């Protein structure tokens, strides 16, 4: 790694993270995420500055590919309108061509049942529809962006005898000051909400076109948060809570965010459920007796928000043994402080 850094790999990767190409953006962010793991804090700061905090927020928040697709589509449509006349000509040309082969055409017109045709149409739609790809690209990049933050605040390498805690605290401070503390938590919350994409798309009213079926379905959609993204968000909070009491207090005071999290105890993804248990454990952790009173407050707050109720369900009913154990541990700590 040393030699790569000397050669200026951070700068190149940061540039690539600004690329127009989604795959390159994704890979560069992935590499940066690995780069900031378990390295001294000054190095982490350099990476974040090189990537530009504002750009990181943009990568995490915006559906870049999806939006690009929409504007591209709008352009195509405009061209389509102009091309209408030529289109008609082309079709006639095709008809002329087919005259020779009319025998062939009729011969095999039978064969596929309507169900088969329907399945064919479905496969065709899923392969040719660029919306799905754009969506996947965006999600993958957002996930890596969140992982980048998570690796920033974790596993700091202590430099010159400073404590690990001091390093982590410094890094979280830096992160809050460069992204904005409230803004950061708002971003995390936004990733947990279901969203309606493009409620006012003009495409939904156009209709009648050859592919109107596919476009209306893609024009305004409700998107539920993906478990990978939820897990990434929760893990960032887990690391904030793992640092010092001060940040545990910051996390517990994010009531809107925590309210959103409660809903995800029912997630189908076991990693999400496990991460939530982990979060509760970390929030109720105490390093010293100074923290005891506040830990009690945090435990009560978690109870009030409904975390405890869900944990009890997980402990008894979760199909995954791992999740059960984590829930048990978390409950034990909460109960300890609730007194």
């Amino acid at each position, binding site marked *: 790694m040393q030699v790569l850094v000397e050669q200026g790999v951070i700068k190149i990767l940061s540039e690539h993270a600004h690329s127009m190409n989604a795959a390159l953006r994704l890979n560069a962010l992935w590499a940066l995420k690995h780069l900031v793991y378990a390295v001294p804090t000054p190095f982490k700061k350099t990476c974040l500055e090189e990537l530009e905090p504002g750009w990181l927020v943009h990568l995490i928040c915006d559906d870049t590919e999806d939006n690009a697709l929409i504007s591209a589509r709008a352009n195509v449509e405009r061209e389509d309108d102009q091309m209408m006349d030529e289109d008609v000509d082309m079709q006639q040309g095709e008809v002329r061509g087919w005259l020779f*082969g009319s025998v062939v055409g009729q011969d095999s017109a039978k064969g596929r049942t309507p169900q088969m045709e329907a399945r064919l149409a479905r*496969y065709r739609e899923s392969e040719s529809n660029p919306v799905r790809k754009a969506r996947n690209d965006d999600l993958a990049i957002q996930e890596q962006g969140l992982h980048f933050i998570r690796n920033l605040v974790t596993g700091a390498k202590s430099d010159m005898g400073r404590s690990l805690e001091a390093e982590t605290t410094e890094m979280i401070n830096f992160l809050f000051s460069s992204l904005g503390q409230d803004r950061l938590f708002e971003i995390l919350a936004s990733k947990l909400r279901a969203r309606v994409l493009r409620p006012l798309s003009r495409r939904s009213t156009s209709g009648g076109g050859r592919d109107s079926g596919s476009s209306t379905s893609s024009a305004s959609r409700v998107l539920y948060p993906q478990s990978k993204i939820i897990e990434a968000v929760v893990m960032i909070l887990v690391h904030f809570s793992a640092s010092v009491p001060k940040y545990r207090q910051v996390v517990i005071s994010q009531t809107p965010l925590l309210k959103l999290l409660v809903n995800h105890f029912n997630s189908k993804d076991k990693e999400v459920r496990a991460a939530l248990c982990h979060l509760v454990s970390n929030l109720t952790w105490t390093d010293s007796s100074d923290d005891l009173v506040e830990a009690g407050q945090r435990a009560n707050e978690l109870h009030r928000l409904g975390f405890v109720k869900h944990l009890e369900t997980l402990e008894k009913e979760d199909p995954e043994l791992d999740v059960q154990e984590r829930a048990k541990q978390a409950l034990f700590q909460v109960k300890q402080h609730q007194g």
Partner: protein
Amino acid sequence: MAPLHAVGALPAILSNISPYLNPPSLVVASLKALTLLADAAALVGPASTCDSQIISDSLFTPHHIESLQAILTSSSPEPVAQLQISLAAGLISKLCAYEGHRCALAKPNGVLDALASRLASFAVADGQVIPGAERQDGVSDSIPEPAPKGARLAPILEAIATIIADSRYRAFMLLTSPCILAVFPTSSTPFTPSVGVKSTWYSTDPHSVPLYGESLSAMDYLLPAVPPHRTSRRLRPKDEMATRERKAVPGTSVHENTRFEPFGPNLDSQVSESDRSESPLIPWLIYLARSRGHLEGLMAIAVLTPLFRADFATKGIREATLGLLIVPTLLQMLRDNLEQNSENDGMTVDAKTATNWKILERAPALLARLIIDSENLQQAAFDCKAVSALTRLLQEAYKSSVSIRQPMWSANPDEGMEEASRPASCVLGGRGHLPLLIHRIKVRESVLKAIAATSGKDDYRKAYVDQDVMPYVVESLARFPGKPLNIKERAKPDKPFEEPDPMEAQPGYGENARSVIIAACHTIRMFSRSVLILRTALVDYGIVAPIFKFLRHPDIEIQIVATAVVANLVLDASPMREVEFYSSLCFLSLY
């Protein structure tokens, strides 16, 4: 090529391929001419596909596609008609490389359906129509005439495989093609063979009966019974979980992300079971792969692969079948052809060599596609000694080809000529490459893909490094490779990052296409998932410098793969990081 383009030879030839307007012998001659043009275009070099593209763009227009379809629909037993069919199918295989062309050829009742009817005719000729197929309602007239004696199966299969490529849509189009449905109906009633056959078949293991259950079709009786020990995992999911988890413990398999997902999420979860029963075409293709000659067998696997990858095969059972029947066949094919790989002067290629080359070029990439998403199949390939076979093939592909054509002595050396003043029809196009070199470069790409696909686990990767595959992979990173040197022969450059790359080809090694470089990067990425290799072999062979340079490569595809490699390279690091790397709180996902 250039002068032929300049005088407009292509449109002239194309105007003669319609079987409705031209006598058969003229059609044959035109198809042959097109084939030769396509072959010549391929020799211009893998780097520029421009000539091939010109030909394919003019061939795959609605009008000419229709001519091709008419040719392929003909069921005349005349040798001339059969020759036309083979040539037309061959042209499709050679030229169809773009998604748009594939879609155009796969239109309902189009070329793909015509090819499917040819394919079905071979089953009819061999008497392998599913019993009872002829009694189905309304389809009996879709059963094609049996294929005549002179018909060739390989071009048909190859053309079908080329058109389907990696599309679930087109794969389903083939499965629901009227002739395929007629000859290989998905029967609702299980097939019961005569008692003798059944008892012989099940004699290997009586327990296999419940395993197959309903999904067994008559076609399966053509295949050896697959012992159930591999599939038995499926029946006991708990055991499988246990072994999985144990295997997952070593630190590197944190999250081995394969983002390669050509089919998108599986849409079939909501489809009812009855809709999902497997077409008997699949066991028939497996049967073909094992019973026919090498080339036909290979092409049968080429058609089978996309069907399997698109989940049209019964999942658990077929995976075992493929592991036991197809993967070994494919690798044996590779070894046999590697031995036959006779000395060739590199200039002329006879039919036998051409077949041999084609198998060596296609088989590894096909293996890669078949096994890439399946741990069990990767294990099967490893058990079949894929490592040594693929390593040997890659070494073969880096043998220096000695015959280099010296420019002929000429009384009027070229320099004095004023090229610009002559009409375009009198200027020769770019010089082609030696067929042998083109072949070797294709083999390099293909083998590297297979090596990457078979490097899913630490053990497999280590086996490759132990076989000394590294020098060859490293040379594949260079646009102009030289002789692969092992670690002792390799000179350590003082400043690897500032050293300029060689700017012209070294005699006998050719120019690696970008696809070779990309495949080599993928292989390095797979290798770099092993910490051990990351710290030893990859450092010893100094791969950091070339990969780093690729970050600034003008080709964005190369930038993308190089960035993926860097994501793993930056993890090597200090001992401190190693501890973190193995600890349970590890937030790295290996890429």
